[in-house]
């Protein structure tokens, strides 16, 4: 349908902008305006400023998971150890979020390639891993981790027997 639309556009629409654009680009500079003066200085100062900001921002992002730890601890404490729908949902979120974040590390730090990028990534990963560990600890205290022999009881091979018996009361 969109194809149809664009075709129609091409067929029927009058493009008034094209010429204007061309015109505007070819406009001469206003009188007294020098393009070359001061441009170099302003450019460099702006560049370092935004870089600093970006690094700061990225550190914020990198430290974000670690900052969540106290909050998560509080949530975990509030959720309790009983197994019901809300604590389970919370624990699920606690695990799923850092794991997702870990997988998305590349895309999160895509925009920069600075000197501190590696450090930031490492901190970010550590923060997420701490969160996962916290969630696992929570699972452990809720008893959701299959760490006991009882959890594997159903998968055990059934016992076989060496000797076989027959008999009973005397038939005579």
């Amino acid at each position: 349908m969109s194809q149809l639309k664009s075709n129609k556009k091409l067929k029927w629409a009058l493009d008034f902008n094209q010429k204007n654009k061309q015109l505007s680009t070819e406009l001469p500079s206003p009188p007294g305006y020098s393009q070359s003066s001061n441009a170099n200085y302003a450019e460099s100062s702006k560049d370092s400023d935004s870089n600093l900001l970006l690094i700061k921002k990225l550190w914020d992002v990198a430290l974000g998971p670690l900052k969540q730890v106290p909050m998560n601890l509080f949530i975990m404490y509030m959720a309790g150890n009983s197994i019901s729908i809300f604590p389970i949902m919370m624990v699920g979120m606690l695990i799923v979020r850092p794991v997702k974040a870990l997988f998305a590390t590349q895309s999160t730090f895509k925009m920069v390639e600075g000197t501190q990028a590696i450090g930031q990534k490492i901190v970010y990963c550590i923060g997420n891993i701490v969160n996962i560990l916290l969630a696992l600890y929570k699972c452990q205290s809720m008893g959701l981790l299959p760490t006991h022999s009882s959890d594997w009881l159903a998968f055990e091979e059934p016992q076989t027997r060496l000797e076989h018996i027959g008999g009973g009361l005397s038939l005579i």
Partner: protein
Amino acid sequence: MGNLSINLKPNFMGLLKCLNSINWFIVFFSLINLSMCIYEDQIGKFDWRQSYVGRIKFAQFDTVSTARKIIVATEENVLAALNLKTGQVVWRHVFESTSSGNIQLLHLSDQIITVTGSNPYLVRGWDLSTGVLIWEWGLTLQKNEHTDFSEWWVQNGLLVHMVPKFGSHIEVSVYNVATGHNRGATSKLPAVWINEGCVLSPPYYTCISGSPGNQLLLSMDVTSDAVQIISKPLAEYTTARNGNLNPFDTNTVIPGFLLNEKIILIRGNKFEAINIAISEPSASVALVDSASGPLVLQTWNDEAKGFTLMAHNLVSGQRVNEIGWSDRSLSIPEPELSAVICTKTAREQHVCRILVTAADDASHLIQQEGRVLWTREEALANVVAVEFVDLPVSDLDAAIESEFDQKEGSVLAAFTRRLQSQFQQLQGAVRALLAGDAAAADEPPPLVRDYFNLHKIMVLLTDTGKIFGMDNLSGEILWKLYEPNLNTEAAVMFTRRSARHPPHDAYLTVVGKHEETGNGLIVSLNPIRGTPVGEQTLHLDVQILQCAVLYKADAQKLHALILLDKDENVQILPESSAPLVENMYMHVADRSSAVVRGYALRHDGERVSAKNIWSVDLSGGGSQRVVWSVSKPAAERIHSAGRVLPDRSVLYKHLNPNLVLLLTEGPDPVHKDVVVATCVDGVSGGVLSAHVHRRARRPALPLHSEHFLAYLYYNDKQRRHEIATLELYEGPERWVPAGAAFSSLRGARAPHVQRHAYIVPAAPAAAALSATERSLTDKHVLLALSTGAIVELPWALLEPRRALSPAGEAREEGLVPYAPELPLPAEAVVNYNATLLRLTRIHTAPSGLESTSLVLATGLDLFYTRIAPSKTFDLLKDDFDYYLISVVLAALVLATYSTKYFAARKMLKMAWK
């Protein structure tokens, strides 16, 4: 359910507390599963009941009431009315199974008169049409001796009781039937000539007396006021040296008897020999009245001609041609004329209806021309063993299965096999289409396995030696096999090959005793068709001590039968399987001496020999005797190796597959009676645990499965039935690693035994455990009560781990607090209100559905049903609304496509805007 009901008891706060602590899920599910019973419209859907009365002792046609019936009294002490047209039970009264319920007399006038018991006697009158008791009076004789030979009959509205005292006199008492008033007290008639060989043909009592060669035939009317003895030399009637007196099987006309295949009547105080030949010494002879005068009927089973019946006119001695035929297709061994009624049609033809009871306890109602109106297989009132046998898969399924069985072969070969079976499937489909539905509707459904393996054949072994194959879904008898020489007193049945191995047929073996010699008698048959296979009927020349089935199958997938005979020799059937015998042990418990012997079976290259390796004496100083010995079911699967405790550790079960529970009982000098339950290892002979119940009697109904055992006994002190339960545990650490083989010889360690006893507030008659294919579902105990109900109890209620006041952990585990009395709720009765009389056994078998267990209860009635101990979790509900679901589904699909269309239109419109 148990959780909830027990917590409801204390108070409501208790319930609230429990709701807090117990998992919400458990509460939720227990609310759903509040009842185990079925809905009213499900009656008869999965279950059926067949009513039997037992072997017919007396029978009389009811000619008085409008609804034609046959009134029968049976050896099982049942008084019943059978519908003349269908043979169904119209009404039935079951008397005591002991001698006090013995029916001595059945007399029909305008009401039914019965005499039951043996001193004291009960005389009762019953309404003919409804079977309601009208009156009753009791009679107790002062002197108890000689009453075994007493005779009863009704004469002119008076009940006559005759007690012969051999070699001395006859005591005759006459009573008013309805009231019991003794008319003329008891009269003693002197008769020194009477003996055990005398016959009664009311009112005459006839004997042969005297020294051999000089014998006299004596007879006397015992009811007449004047004593008149008819006496004739025996030589006048028979040339044989020894006279043999026999009464008629049915006699409604003239007093008479049979003397060495000769009919002699007593008319006008005279013997009168009738010149009608009795063709066969074993023939059953009856004297019946008909429109053209009295008839003599005789029937026997002729080897050449089959079932034969013949009739003569008593007066003329002429043969009545229209009554009399032989039928080779009828298999009625040793027929006996139970009741005969003869009328005449408008065309002056005799019409007789003859009720014949055979040696195999079957009763046939035969009409003219040998047409059998109905047959009642009364042998089924005494079932001694039951085996559920899987049906074979259909030919098509077998082909598909064999395709997957063949592991070897190249890809190309597998592909051609695939194509072949596909082609066969196509052929089958085309053939089914061509044949049409009409042909399929008429013939019975083929005996092939259904998808869930719910359809099976039940092989029932009965007391008389008749073996039945019965369809479990309909209760229809598919085949029957009568083995007259089979004594089923201690008979066992084994399925030695199931129908799962296509080219080979299923194979079932019955090991019993020969009726006369007591030697081993082995019957092998195909349980699907009832035809003899393999060894067929094998008479051994030695008594069998014990038998077992070898766990290993031979090349033909047949499990060998191991027979241990009286001289401790071993016989393997078939003999070619002898090299397969290894690691096989047998044990034999002797009832009276209470000694259990264990044998190791070894194959020494030529033959298998049994070596006595241990023996355990359970006699306790000579007074105890073994009453039960029960080991685990042979093909038992155990799903879980342990029990998970609330702290998530495992309490491992002691799953000794060789464990045998032996119940002994006997008198005790201090405690009156003592019951001892001993758990013995069947391989090593080691005693794992022993429990003594003091002042207890009658240990019964042992149950043994996985790691738990249960048995019933009668508590003499409290006068009640109790059930003792045991569970065996290895503890938190397992003795052998998971998956390893268990060996009884690996060193003896005693397991932890937990035990409890519970009061059963009823008298249990039979017990069984539910059985499922993989033992994933809960175990339930089925208890048949003497009230005629079968109660399904979860094992959780019988568990010995139930603590008196459960602390936190035990409560978390879901253990029900201990209560001494077992609840037997009405909704746990699996046979709803279909009362089952005199239940003796319950048999369970797994089906292909993990949730479902098949149950057959036997006794006087047969009752089949299926139970789902953990609910039908793998099955849609019975009333699942398929129509609603498909309508909703179709509507949803329709809605999806229509909205798609409308959405496209809307988009188009939007684009135009």
